[in-house]
């Protein structure tokens, strides 16, 4: 189970995680994109932190909506609309809730991923954040179906996201700026899949 306090802690730690991984994400993006992903994620979650500290949302849905709107307003690039849409859909899935059961957490990620797919129109194996998020959701749903406990569910989600992220290395990019590279995009890990893996990994670290 995840309380509203623990969910907020996830968002707060994400700010630190993206700040710490700023250069790592810049370096990954320099190789196949335009070198701004680390800067944008750091700026976005730093703004989220500032906005959340000014408000006291009544429930998890309202809190995630603040996260979404701040990301949409301050991230820019492709990551702004994509992560913004992820959290906006996640907020709708959590509307009115002050704690999440395992099934609610899985439903939250499912709604978020559906939003990303709709906004970005990427498919699996296009070398995008979908390649981390989609296998993570499959793994979490399977674990939930098996009756695994909450910790196992998110651990398996994060493990699948990590594998999915690593699987982007040999892929040929078909979406985003990396797709302009064609064959030259092969051999590089996708920065968006990496920031998405960090989302899951941080959930394990904070909730696990």
């Amino acid at each position, binding site marked *: 189970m995840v309380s509203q306090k623990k969910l907020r802690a996830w968002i707060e730690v994400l700010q630190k995680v993206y700040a710490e991984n700023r250069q790592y994400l*810049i370096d990954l993006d*320099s190789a196949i*994109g*335009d*070198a*701004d992903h680390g*800067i*944008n994620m750091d*700026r976005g979650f730093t703004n989220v932190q500032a906005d959340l500290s000014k408000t006291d949302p009544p429930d998890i849905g309202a809190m995630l909506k603040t996260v979404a709107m701040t990301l*949409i*307003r*301050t*991230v*820019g*690039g*492709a*990551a*702004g*609309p*994509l992560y913004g849409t992820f959290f906006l859909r996640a907020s709708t899935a959590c509307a009115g809730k002050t704690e999440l059961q395992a099934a609610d957490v899985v439903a939250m990620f499912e709604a978020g991923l559906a939003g990303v797919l709709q*906004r*970005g129109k990427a498919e699996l194996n296009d070398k995008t954040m979908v390649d981390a998020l989609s296998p993570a959701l499959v793994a979490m749903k399977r674990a939930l179906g098996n009756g695994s406990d909450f910790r196992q569910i998110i651990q398996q989600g994060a493990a699948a996201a990590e594998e999915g992220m690593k699987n982007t290395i040999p892929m*040929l990019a*078909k*979406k*985003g*700026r990396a*797709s*302009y*590279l*064609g064959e*030259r995009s092969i051999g590089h890990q996708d920065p968006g899949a990496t920031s998405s893996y960090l989302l899951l990994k941080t959930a394990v670290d904070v909730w696990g």
Partner: protein
Amino acid sequence: MKKLINKPEDLVPESLAGMAAAHSDLINVNYNPNYIVRADAPIQGKVGIVSGGGSGHEPMHGGLVGMGMLDAACPGEVFTSPTPDQMEAATKAVNGGAGALHIVKNYTGDVMNFEMAAELCLAEGIDVEAVVINDDVAVKDSLYTAGRRGVGITVLAEKICGAAAEQKQDLKKVADICRQVNANGRSMGMALTSCAVPSAGKPTFEIGADEMEIGIGIHGEPGRERMPLKTAREIVGIMSAAIISDLPFQSGDSVIVMVNGMGGTPLIELYLVFHELNEVCKGKGIKIVRQLIGNYITSLEMAGCSITLLKTNDELLKLWDAPVHTPALRWGV
């Protein structure tokens, strides 16, 4: 990295403050959300022309705001798309009741942010049409890429659509003209050196002293091919061949040409590039009827250039010649 900046995070707003102070007769700058708007906006009954994109391409787009061109421009962070709230606020600021045209360069982020902005504007009852510019022949247009990038034709489309809007043509017509310009225009760029995003602090890509990148994007994204440096004549030959064969431009066509500097190339070289291009066009029977030579869609301090050709007709040429008065482009006034 050596740059004339204070702090990387202050570059965009401080530069906007300079533009506002320098061109207060033409434009106003709004902060949070950031946008540049014509001093006399909104104009009743006129379609608002709104564009935007990452900063670092100056004078595009902010320097192209003014009579006969853009009504508003939304600057993002350096090389990062602006956000939907900027675009929505800018669109509202220029809405004179005739709707707005969003001119969007084909980059994943720009397209998604403008899509969200258009949804917000429509919800507020403002009629918005968006045209996505994708003129870069360096990128294969296929299901397997994000599609061709929007580059040089953006400047020409903004000038021509701005003139059509100034004549109070309606939104559908102005959008049709924009699509016509995009369909008949092609561009390609090349780089001699990299550029450095201020907040990243180092060059975006490595390139040897004796190498060039053909087909470079305007953010330092690699293009078609890395190859040994050649003469200007050979380089213009490669670029013009790719552009001319793509549309294709044919003998007897009249074209508007832009030879654009990427930010770090002097005019003496750009005029030489134009000379070489003029020779190529003469040889192929393509008639250059207008030309623009200078830095219009740049990539920070990158050295290099891009070439844009637009197949034109009487209607487009009249709109091109119509008066324009912006910080970076001015004639007929």
